[in-house]
């Protein structure tokens, strides 16, 4: 897995609440057997009319070339619905490294963390202040200090992250490495309950 620590970037504001994983990546794109290439179908039905790449929906934020960056900022309850990890893969494959919201759905949050995509939960007020920024504004994220900063104003908020997961992201470790290293304890557990 990729390592994450500091990210300094512009951001893409998606001012929608309850963004479900069916919007992030519609079910018809789940027929793949690899993890690659989901980015081109990210928010597919919000991006294009009639599934046609030649007919982009002009008012959708990803189609506005004046927005860019590695940080996606969205309204509360982001990633609700299906457990499809393809949603996290699509966001990552599109080029985002961080998703900021005031509230994440549980399974999406885990899927993001397991893929080196950092979900940052901020207060409603902080989220509103990001949405109020102009499109050239930048954000700075420091995972080590667990802070997100609006560079123009210096406004900073700290965010929570499980200490174990933080270590994983900073070092590029994944859970499987950890679990495999504990195989003896797992076998012992099985023996004792049999």
């Amino acid at each position: 897995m990729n390592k994450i620590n500091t990210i300094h970037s512009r951001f893409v504001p998606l001012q929608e609440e309850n963004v479900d994983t069916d919007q992030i990546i519609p079910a018809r794109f789940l027929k793949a057997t690899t993890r690659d290439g989901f980015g081109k179908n990210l928010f597919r039905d919000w991006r294009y009319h009639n599934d046609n790449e030649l007919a982009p929906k002009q008012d959708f934020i990803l189609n506005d070339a004046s927005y860019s960056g590695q940080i996606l900022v969205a309204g509360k309850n982001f990633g609700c619905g299906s457990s499809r990890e393809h949603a996290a893969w699509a966001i990552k494959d599109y080029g985002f490294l961080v998703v900021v919201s005031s509230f994440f759905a549980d399974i999406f949050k885990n899927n993001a963390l397991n893929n080196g995509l950092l979900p940052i939960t901020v207060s409603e007020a902080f989220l509103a202040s990001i949405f109020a920024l102009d499109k050239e504004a930048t954000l700075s994220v420091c995972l080590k200090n667990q802070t997100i900063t609006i560079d123009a104003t210096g406004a900073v908020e700290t965010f929570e992250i499980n200490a174990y997961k933080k270590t994983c992201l900073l070092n590029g470790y994944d859970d499987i490495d950890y679990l495999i290293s504990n195989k003896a304890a797992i076998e012992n557990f099985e023996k004792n309950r049999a």
Partner: protein
Amino acid sequence: MGKTLFEKIWDTHIVQEVTDGPSVLYIDKHFIHEVTSPQAFKGIEDRGISIFRPAHIVATADHNVPTLNQHLPITDALSRFQVDTLIENCKKHGIELYGLGHEHQGIVHVIGPELGITQPGMTIVCGDSHTSTHGAFGTIAFGIGTSEVEMVFASQCLLQTKPKLMRINIEGTLGKGVVSKDIILYIIAKISASGATGYFVEYAGSAVRALSMEARMTICNMSIEMGARGGLIAPDQTTFDYIKGRTFAPAGAAWDTALAYWQTLYSDADAAFDLELTIDAATIEPMITYGTNPGLGIGITKKVPTAADMQDEGEQKNLAKALEYMGLTAGQSLMGMPVQHVFIGSCTNSRIEDLRLVASLVKGKTKNPNVQVMIVPGSQKVAKQVVQEGLDIIFREAGFEIRQAGCSACLGMNEDKVPAGEYCVSTSNRNFEGRQGAGARTLLASPLTAAAAAVNGVITDVRTLL
């Protein structure tokens, strides 16, 4: 202090606590299907490791299978390749597969319980958010992502943080025409699509005790629609009677041992919950959704909310967006509104009891000519039972189309889709934009309310037909 049902199961499955982190949780049963497993198999192979406990895994093909002509090769090339990949992976790794054509094949959350694989006290996971269904048997069951599928492949364990616990008591007696789907749609409408995020929910109370296992599964199934990772119900005589004699249920002395353990699985009287709610069953009407998340639902006699009913500007915006997509107007009544499709199926409502309910309402009636009605049984076993009980005759005479088992129009992965702009009363679990096909407009309801819409061709208060 006493323990909750959840804690009793959780505590006996902890292999190890991680300092400042999650716990290593042992998983008893791992269900897999064709859509969320291929990348996990690939991951295992790339790491050069084998599957740790293949005997704990059960596979089926359900999400991406056709519901017509299942004996023929799948025509969609991508779908066929995905299903073939599952077959190949299961063969390679020694995993039991109930694929197309197998008598046990069906929707993963229908077959686990009906085969007696799902048993009280277990930890159960699957790469599908509706794994919460199995909680109806007093299990810790939850949906996971593909990386987590890979973790369970590698170690039969997951790193998990203990969730908060909520108990929802539903007390009293349900009114005429009100069924378990209405209970859960009512709860989600009350606490919102994110109201239980971070929690596991135990459902309790006299109204829950009175429900069959199928009805309990419907409630636990939709726990995820209010954000809960899972829902569970303490096992009781109804549970034990359901399991006894099923294909993989314990028998003989093993049954007695299992039963003695299962009977200890309940929340102690002095157990503490982080949040507790009580609902009067008698206040619940047949429910229907009007919006684009399962929390946007109303009693069938109520009107679609207006901006004035919303708590803040954000909610007002969400409502306006949902109503625009649905082609509905704030303040309108849904009753009498024409619909073009009725879908009866999905892991929420495709069990034999659901189909019996539908049959009881439509017996001797025919569907409205302007509605297409599709019934998709949850499993081969349910499909067989439909014929044995003669329900197929009732459905055919009513003009309903009966398909073969699969997830079908619940998520629109296969050919079973609702055309853009058309309305579908659906017994499934999600009314998200495009869920049943790009532009499709889904109204979630119970099997009874769906059957009433099929007969009348318009949204109907089923109580007027009883």
